[in-house]
């Protein structure tokens, strides 16, 4: 009774976990066991169970205020005080050293040049890697610029480079593309996907953009009111094309599930204005995202 998982998905995902685990030994295996989190009286997470295989790319979707960012921050070790257990490769202690997080705003230090931002927290003898990773995100030429002179998309690419230069085994993405325009977002999807395949880290992406989740993730997990209500495998070949019928069908399926849930009435003032679109028909929403 602790979980109201969807149909066959739980079984399917466990099987898939086993199959990807053989292929990848670099990424962290993450397991979340019956995690609860309260803020005062309010229970934000009501018993989350989630297994992520090494190297797997998992996207968490849900309405704003559903608890998805809280889960990510718990995994990152940025918040504490939860009940339940988090295991990284089977160990209980949080592995900050192997984990890097990318935030919605780039959080670059404005007083450091691009290359020094990327090198933040690196031991001196590894500073040379900063330039290399900047090359991977296509910003090697801009390495001596101030962050203020970059566009929003470029800043997020710098933030991505800053995360990757530490060779994380678990990369957490907290709506990193939420503030970008649609075209830049699609470019970033391709970049993130190629770097994920190259580096082999485990990725956990929080997003409210269902199409983004399906474009990138091996699995899409839907959280509603603090519970996982859908855990869906995305078996489309990569790179994925939004135009395909299978893509559209999956996207519609997830969106329908999101829309089935009544809006979170307990906290209406926390809803973004963007969520108004969720009250429209599925087709309109698909066009919008």
């Amino acid at each position: 009774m602790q979980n109201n998982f969807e149909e066959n998905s739980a079984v399917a995902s466990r099987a898939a976990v086993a199959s990807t685990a053989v292929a990848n030994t670099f990424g962290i295996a993450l397991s979340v066991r019956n995690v609860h989190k309260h803020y005062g009286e309010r229970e934000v997470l009501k018993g989350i169970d989630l297994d992520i295989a090494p190297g797997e790319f998992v996207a968490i979707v849900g309405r704003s205020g559903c608890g998805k960012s809280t889960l990510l921050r718990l995994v990152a070790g940025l918040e504490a005080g939860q009940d339940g257990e988090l295991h990284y490769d089977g160990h209980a202690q949080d592995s900050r050293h192997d984990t890097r997080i990318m935030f919605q705003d780039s959080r670059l230090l404005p007083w450091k040049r691009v290359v020094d931002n990327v090198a933040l927290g690196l031991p001196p003898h590894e500073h040379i890697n900063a330039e290399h990773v900047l090359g991977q995100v296509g910003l090697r030429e801009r390495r001596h610029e101030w962050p203020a002179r970059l566009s929003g998309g470029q800043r997020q690419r710098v933030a991505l480079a800053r995360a990757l230069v530490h060779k994380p085994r678990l990369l957490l993405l907290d709506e990193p593309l939420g503030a970008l325009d649609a075209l830049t977002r699609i470019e970033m999807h391709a970049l993130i996907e190629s770097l994920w395949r190259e580096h082999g880290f485990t990725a956990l992406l929080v997003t409210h953009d269902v199409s983004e989740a399906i474009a990138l993730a091996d699995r899409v997990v839907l959280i509603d009111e603090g519970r996982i209500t859908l855990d869906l495998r995305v078996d489309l070949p990569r790179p994925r094309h939004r135009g395909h019928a299978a893509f559209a069908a999956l996207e519609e399926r997830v969106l329908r599930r999101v829309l089935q849930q009544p809006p979170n009435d307990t906290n209406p003032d926390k809803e973004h204005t963007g969520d108004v679109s969720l009250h429209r028909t599925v087709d309109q929403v698909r066009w919008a995202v």
Partner: protein
Amino acid sequence: MSTPQKKTLFDRTLPWLLPVLLISAWQFAAHVGWLSSRVLPEPLKVFESAWELLKSGELLHHVLVSTRRAFIGLAIGGGLGLTLGLLTGTFRRAETLLDTTLQMIRNVPPLALIPLVILWFGIDEAAKIFIVAVGVFFPLYMNTYHGIRSVDPALIEMAKSYGVSGWRLYRDVIFPGALPSILVGLRFALGFMWVLLIVSETISATEGIGYMTMNAREFLRTDVVLVGILLYALLGKLADIIARGLERFWLRWNPNYANA
């Protein structure tokens, strides 16, 4: 209509129009005798006296003495303000311990301390430096404290999650984040510095610009008094230029300071 270039030239000369007119009127009025030279000697006479003082080396001596006092006071008071501001901004304990006391002392005008200072230090060098140090302490303390407190917590969270902590967190995130505010404090402090120095030098001194003007008053040398006043204006402007230069260099990452 005028061309854009003409307009720029006009715009550039416009701020100087009023000073030039005023000085011309002053020169004219003094020259024809409408103004007694005891009230206001003609500008040419002022420049002549300045030149005389410069040639004799007297002017440079007084300027150096005053500047030395000003900057020793700034170094002591400002340095203390910066240190305590960093301390109370960073550690809650230090804030609880010190802030109430400092806020109470802040409400005492530094010039109100002059009688006490004279009793303590006599009319010695230390008296003037003390007054300046007290005056520049608070702008630097307040702005440093505020700067540290207003560093974006999101940046600190990010840096910590990227393995930056302790001294490196301070050097790479907290101090640079507070620097714009600290420099605002420095500019205020430089303003106070001259005001306090002038007052303490006119009360009691045996050298320095304040002494020079007070001495000139005794001999009814209004021209030399004016030279002293103009010197203060010049030195104040110079301090401001230095502060702006520091801002432009240290805050060059900030588009608001980068050009101009």
